[in-house]
């Protein structure tokens, strides 16, 4: 147990270090803020819609000790709004996603359906910006609702997933040209650290929750020593005629160990989207 805690602490420390590294890449180069014309607060910087397919791995010991894997359909949208144009610029980035996956166990005899609605709101400040690089970092709020439904189980057929929490996030943008074609690569990393989650007790049935209400153990404090929550997106913007395409991968993980139960979900989603609005770049250079 102690060894496990030390491992988790080390792991989360690495994560935080990673976020700091990425944030500091900008500051390390040259801490300067872009001096472009002040845009009004609330200006929508960009907006994009995505469709994706993903591979999901789920293990929820409330339902089954088996690991379930399968494909999922994903829809998502991303919207960035300017929150403050004066001093150090700040932005609100909303990543909203819904997914549904059909999963099976290794023996291909069991089936589970996983479904989630996931919203990540990141408030980030610009730490570096020039013609090629933009680096932002800040905090985020994460709201997740969903569940896993086992198609065979009797009185424990489903496990609900509910989480609300806050953490740290960062985003880096690298702009480059290949020939005359401009590209932009975006890397977003978010790690909700503290929050509240829901879990039934070890042998508690939803029938009992329905009949007798929640117990003291059904709402748990989620922290780095009992849960693991991260989201990362690596996307590239590709101009295609008059349309701006955005494609890349999203890695999403949400795991926790509470009430002697372990829930583990890892998603890797391949996303393709269209940038609907790109009136201003982060540096106001219209890209």
């Amino acid at each position, binding site marked *: 147990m102690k060894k496990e805690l030390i*491992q*988790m602490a080390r*792991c*989360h420390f*690495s*994560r935080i*270090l*990673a976020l700091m*590294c*990425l944030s*500091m*890449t900008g500051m*390390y*180069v040259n801490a300067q803020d872009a001096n472009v014309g002040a845009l009004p607060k609330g200006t929508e910087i960009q907006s994009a819609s995505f469709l994706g397919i993903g591979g999901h791995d789920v*293990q929820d010991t409330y*339902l*089954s*000790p*088996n690991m379930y894997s399968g494909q999922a359909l994903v829809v998502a949208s991303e919207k960035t709004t300017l929150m403050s144009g004066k001093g150090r610029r700040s932005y609100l980035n909303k990543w909203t996603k819904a997914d549904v996956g059909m999963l099976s*166990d*290794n*023996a291909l*005899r*069991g089936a589970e359906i996983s479904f989630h609605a996931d919203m990540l709101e990141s408030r980030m400040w610009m730490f570096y910006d020039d013609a090629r*690089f933009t680096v932002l970092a800040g905090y985020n709020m994460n709201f997740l609702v969903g569940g896993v439904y*086992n198609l*065979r*189980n*009797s*009185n*424990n057929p489903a496990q609900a997933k509910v989480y609300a929490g806050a953490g740290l996030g*960062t985003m*880096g943008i690298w702009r480059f040209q290949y020939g005359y074609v401009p590209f932009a690569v975006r*890397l977003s*990393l978010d*790690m909700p650290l503290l929050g509240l989650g829901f879990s039934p*007790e*070890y*042998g*508690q*049935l939803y*029938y*009992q929750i329905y009949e*007798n209400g929640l*117990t003291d*153990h059904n709402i748990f404090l989620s922290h*780095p020593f*009992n*849960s*693991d929550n*991260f989201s*990362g997106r*690596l996307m590239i913007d590709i101009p295609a005629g008059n349309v701006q395409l955005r494609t890349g991968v999203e890695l999403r*993980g949400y*795991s926790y*160990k509470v009430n*002697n139960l*372990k829930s*583990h979900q*890892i998603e890797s989603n391949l996303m393709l989207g269209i940038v609907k609005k790109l009136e201003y770049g982060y540096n106001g250079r219209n890209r």
Partner: protein
Amino acid sequence: MKKHILRLALMACVLCFTQCVKPDDTYEDTPSGNLKALWEIIDQRYCFLEYKAQEYGLDWDGVYQKYSRRIVDDMSEEALFEVLGDMLSELRDGHVNLYSVRDVSRYWSWYQDYPVNYSEDLVNNYLGKDFRIASGMYYKILDDNIGYMRYASFSDVISESGLDAIFAHFLLCNGLIIDVRSNGGGSLEYESQLVSRFTNESVLVGYVSHKTGPGHEQFSEPEERMVIPADEYYRWQKPVVVLTNRGCFSATNAFVNDMSCLPKVCIIGDRTGGGSGIPASSELPNGWSVRFSSAPMFTKDMKHIEFGIEPDIKVDLDPVMAAQGKDSMIETARAYLNSLLD
């Protein structure tokens, strides 16, 4: 400089996507792996191990030793299923099953080792052809003005309007017989819905608990099970007899327990079959599904009812009366209810 930035960014990615909460190790999909998985599921999640150790000396560690000897690496799925099914039958629990594509292992001795005490032919002699059906219940007023309702499964949907129709039909009856013999259970929701028609006030009928961890004695504080009167609907105010046999299991066992806590209710027949653990499910590495008792229910005196409930008046089906087309258990119930009129 750019290289430094890229290196840092790359390092950040690698670090960020390192998993902190690792998934549990899964068992190997081999005969011994499946046996171990099944044994551990029961060891950690089954709710009656301690109780059954006291009742009949169940030694779950010994069970593993006993059945692991029957496992060989190249055994067929059929042979493995037989071993695992035999291992589960040590629990003597009708709520415990192993499901494969080909078969379902079960323990049915809770009723097969005892007199049936129910005959559909005899019941049909009382129902005749002009009985009514509502909410899954067959019902009729018998010649001596006693209402008779037969409920064969708590999986049959009960509606409030259906129950109102039944009680309206029985409005002028002197008593009521609820025949739940050989009712193997179903929904606890329907069970409490039906019981709520027989009380005018909230009554404590028992407790329910659940496991809080893998230890054999890790249980939550028992939560009260209350019967709340169905205030907005017809409620029965006259004497009631509940007819029981060994086929009364699970939700029906809970129904008999709950009814026995109410005034004007008499349980007549044979001991019920039991089954007081609310079942849950899990799975083996080979994809077989296992059902097991997960949350124990107790009487209002915190006694286990896993092995059934004794009736107030013990009656078996009399073969002599049966030969005459009469159900001795129904006749006893009628005589009891009519005796209350004197």
